[in-house]
């Protein structure tokens, strides 16, 4: 197990996000006072400071915002070959880090602003949100 990939350890404020992933849903939070959707999970709106916030299920649609292709693998990634560490922009606005699946992780295949769709990868007890080309993972 010491050579396995890092597994997120949910905390009370992030638990609904990870529970959503286990159901195959990407959960975001939204401020009930100003309407701002945001990520990462936390109990306060970063736009207006309101603590009146709610969870909702995001569309899972995103575009590729930026990335690197990492040639120095992290623990557990040794056998994957060079892999993209990407940031995607969700259709709802927030951005998140992810990996890109279902497509070669090469500069030629990973074109900025390409349409992506969330899918989930099992990692220990956690379902981890990753993204693949839109239309192939729905």
């Amino acid at each position, binding site marked *: 197990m010491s050579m396995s990939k890092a597994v997120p350890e949910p905390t009370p404020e992030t638990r609904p996000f990870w529970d959503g992933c286990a159901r195959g849903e990407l959960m975001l939070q939204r401020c009930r006072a100003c309407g701002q959707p945001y990520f990462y999970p936390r109990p306060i709106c970063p736009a207006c400071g309101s603590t009146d916030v709610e969870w909702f299920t995001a569309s899972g649609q995103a575009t590729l915002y930026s990335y690197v292709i990492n*040639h120095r*693998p992290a623990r557990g990634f040794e056998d994957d070959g060079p892999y993209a560490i990407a940031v995607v922009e969700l259709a709802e606005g927030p951005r998140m*880090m992810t990996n890109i699946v279902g497509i070669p992780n090469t500069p030629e295949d990973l074109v900025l602003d390409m349409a992506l769709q969330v899918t989930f990868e099992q990692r220990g007890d956690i379902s981890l949100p990753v993204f693949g080309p839109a239309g192939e993972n729905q």
Partner: protein
Amino acid sequence: MSRERGVIIAGAAETDALGKLPDHSTLQLHIEGAVNAVADAGLTMRDIDGIATVNSPGPVQVAHALGITPAWMDGTAVGGTSFLLHVRHAAAAIRAGYATTVLITHGESGRSRVGAAPWPRGGSSIPGQFEAPYGTTGPTSTFTIPLLRYMKEYGLTQEQLAYVAVAQRKWAARNPRAMFRDLITVEDVLASRIVAYPFHLLECCLVTDGGGALIVTAADRAAEFPKPPVHVLGTGEAMETPMISQMVDFTESQAFRQAGQAAFAEAGITTADVRHMMIYDAFAHVPIYGLEALGFVKKGEAGPFIADGNTEPGGRLPLNTNGGGLSYTHTGMYGMFAIQEGVRQVRGEAAAQVPDAEISVILGNGGMFATSGVLVLGRQAG
């Protein structure tokens, strides 16, 4: 402008050697830097009544090892720019009367990892939950992520990025203490192995052992010290994000801009006054972001500006004249070395001395565009 009591850097020194120092622990590097800086200022350790450094080992450990018990301490640890913030905080403490003579130390066994703190982990932290699972490996795979977006938005080419390393090597070639001194070409950079596409090895900083320290005190004491005073004319500090994925705009650093604006405003200067510039270069894109954030060029123009030779020897804005993190040294928290070169240039004692370095600006980065500090240093009081 001198609305407040002036503050100077009265002593500045690095460890005797930089590079691969397996016989030095992290704490030893702090001590050696401190001893050298105190000597540079013509003081003794007993004269120090304030201390600032990062964790670890932290101000209590460093002060205790030095046999002193300062009545003012600052343990701000927000990455490699922390030492610039320490100068800012020390200036405030001196003006407030909390301390008269502040010692700021850096030591890091970044390469040999002797007595070094382990890299922080923790799967329940926010980065542990939302970045580490995607295979991040520290700065090389995270600090680098914004650049592809910048390249698409502003047309920066791989050759222009590579030229940042080429230009800085020209400075390093003039500096006997620089780790890498052989001149390189764009072709050499692009032929070096890819570390994290689009970054090649020669576009990434060194990993070394070393340290350094500063003595900060009131400007009205300037005549007491053997070296010419380096006036702290303006300072700024700013923060943006604990995770690269949450950077507001991947094509610009808000922290760089805000810290720069604060420092320039306090000093009462514009970019036209700056004769020497240091920009923390953990990777080749950081000077590009820095030049644009401080307003030396417009968005998208820094790559061509550097590629046209403006920042290399003979250029109109000498930049990273020690060779920078790419060629001089980079222990992990490089900010101390950027300050040291700014001090040397203002004093007129740098290895690759710039003519008329009346005003030097130091732009520090902490984490992955997480934090920033800016110092405006000058030969004359404001």
